[in-house]
């Protein structure tokens, strides 16, 4: 009885009732819309720029910049090109971001663990730190570290002097710059030797543990070797290192290594701010490891330290990594607030002065955004790779 009805049915659906056709159709529309919108945007921009006599193209990158930048990791002076200002800005951004990531991670982990400390005072102080720092806008904190602290530092002539080698004043922190002399090769050799020795010891200790079960204090011995061998080789080689000491020349200190206050303020503010978020991430990561895991570990007779190291932290890491990644991304993006206090990062130098002198906003902004996009994607990529490595294998 059913047969007839079946046979009257068409074999295949009408195209517009077929979900595959529908989905193709929607996607075609979507992509058309995107292209259309993109085209309108480009077309408008080009015609607007043309009608307003704005020059286009990337030729400006070769022109002479003509302005000074206080801090450059790649060689730069005012006679170089705008293209070079881009590299100066980019390297400065990368420097402060990298410094920030390292400091924020260390600080964040310490505070996150302190938050769970059994010491009441320490736990409460960590809590206060987190709640205060993360609820105040970063820009404000940068201003604070820059203007408020700066104005309380002495002028160069009244510098804080630590042993005639290290100076602190409102122009920055001046450190001695090591200049290697002839014979320093021996010290390098010593350092390499020490590293090789530590690696060797590690391998040996592992083997020994596999074979006999004995655990060798690799860490302590390693540290000792790393410290002692270079020092001994330094002395043996006849101290082949001179320090270029900073000294007051004219208005300012010359020589040595300078950490300018802009960098310091930005670095401190970024690190403290991001650390408050990382601390919370670390804490919840550790708490996310279920009580059953610690109990099981204890039931196996593992003492507290080993439980933490072998059971809790490896599992906490996989919870910590993804939000940690986005904190790193935020930190890099936030480093662009440099422009508010005159640290010459990419946004301040390239999207600031260069853009302004050349007037080529579209090109400059496009390059800047592309750079941030690339940095973000790279960080995500590395963290994803790491994350995959620590991920739990499921069925």
């Amino acid at each position, binding site marked *: 009885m059913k047969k007839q009805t079946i046979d009257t049915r068409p074999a295949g659906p009408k195209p517009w009732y077929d979900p595959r056709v529908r989905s193709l159709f929607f996607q075609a529309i979507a992509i058309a819309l995107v292209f259309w919108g993109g085209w309108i945007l480009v077309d408008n921009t080009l015609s607007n720029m043309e009608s307003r006599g704005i020059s286009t193209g990337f030729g400006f990158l070769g022109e002479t910049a003509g302005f000074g930048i206080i801090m450059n990791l790649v060689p730069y002076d005012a006679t170089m090109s705008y293209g070079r200002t881009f590299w100066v800005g980019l390297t400065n951004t990368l420097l402060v971001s990298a410094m920030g990531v390292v400091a924020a991670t260390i600080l964040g982990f310490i505070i996150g663990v302190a938050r769970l400390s059994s010491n009441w005072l320490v736990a409460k102080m960590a809590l206060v730190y987190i709640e205060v720092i993360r609820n105040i806008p970063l820009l404000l904190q940068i201003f604070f570290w820059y203007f408020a602290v700066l104005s309380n530092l002495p002028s160069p002539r009244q510098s804080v002097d630590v042993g005639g080698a290290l100076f602190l004043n409102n122009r920055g922190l001046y450190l001695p710059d090591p200049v290697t002399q002839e014979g320093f090769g021996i010290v390098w050799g010593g350092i390499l030797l020490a590293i090789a020795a530590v690696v060797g010891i590690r391998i040996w200790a592992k083997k020994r543990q596999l074979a006999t079960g004995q655990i060798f204090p690799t860490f302590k011995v390693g540290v000792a070797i790393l410290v002692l061998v270079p020092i001994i080789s330094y002395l043996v080689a006849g101290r082949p290192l001179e320090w270029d000491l900073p000294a007051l020349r004219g208005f300012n200190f010359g020589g040595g290594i300078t950490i300018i206050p802009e960098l310091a303020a930005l670095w401190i503010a970024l690190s403290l701010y991001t650390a408050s978020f990382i601390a919370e991430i670390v804490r919840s990561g550790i708490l996310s490891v279920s009580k059953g895991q610690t109990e099981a570990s204890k039931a196996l007779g593992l003492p507290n330290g080993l439980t933490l190291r072998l059971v809790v932290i490896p599992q906490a890491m996989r919870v910590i990594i993804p939000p940690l990644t986005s904190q790193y991304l935020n930190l890099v993006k936030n480093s662009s607030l440099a422009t*508010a*206090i005159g640290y010459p990062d990419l946004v301040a130098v390239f999207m600031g002065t260069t853009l302004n002198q050349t007037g080529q906003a579209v090109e400059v902004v496009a390059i800047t955004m592309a750079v941030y996009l690339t940095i973000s994607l790279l960080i995500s990529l590395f963290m994803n790779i790491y994350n995959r490595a620590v991920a739990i294998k499921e069925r």
Partner: protein
Amino acid sequence: ATTLENVKEKGHLQCGVTSGLPGFSQPDEKGNWTGIDVDTCRAVAAAIFGDANAVEFTPLTAKERFTALQSGEIDMLSRNTTWTLTRDASLGLNFAGVNYYDGQGFLINKGIGVDDATQLDGATICIQAGTTTELNLSDYFRAKGMEFKPIVFDTSEQTVQGFAAGRCDVLTSDRSQLAALRSKLSDPSSAKILPNTISKEPLGPVVRQGDDQWFNIVKWVLSVQINAEELGVTSANADDMLKSDNPNIQRLLGTDGDMGAKLGLPDDFGYQAVKLVGNYGEMYDRNVGPDTPLGLDRGINALWTEGGIMYAPPVR
């Protein structure tokens, strides 16, 4: 549509100014703007609408200003902007004249014991980003074979704060501003202005390229104000001057001829501008002159007839 049509349709002029520079453009607590750059905008608004308040101000940092003008975000830029060849030629902009002749100078902390710019080798210098100042400074120090460390801030507030906090030995800017900036220090007597002027800084209103009518309007409103001072027409006597027999004054105030129509404006545009905003001299005295906190002498900004270089082409 032409800029004039756009402005008329909006009913107001959109004018880019600084976010706070005493004497040039500065909002008070109620958002009322004053300053010589502000008055330049108001004069244009008065010429178009017969209403000096038909203008809105967009505060801009030095970095943003050209992009804002290029993009059409503002109709004219009156933001102590220096007229240079590059800006005229490759930014797609046109300078419509000069409303203040300035030069770059140095404000130093007295503590460093310097009284001439040639002694500044190795100094740390606070500057504002995106200004000709930034470039002039490099040129000057390079020419003199000296070194310096530039600290570049976004806004003049931050520049002063940086200087006040002791971040730099020297603050450099246009001389007209140095006095104002010094007055913002908690102890103005701790700083002094060096006698050197290291550059020419003709400051004036800017418009976009490609709209000659609009370019002419801004240029001629400014010229009318300078001419008015030369002819002795002020906001106080403008009504009386309407009856003047002087053909120069008649053309200026629109009682004779169709000067306004040629620009696309009402014929009495000159009268409105002078009546509502004042002539150049009034504008100067009101905002930056000796009786103001800035207390700047006319100097080269005096009329050509009085030994200065302020000179406007004739309205004819």
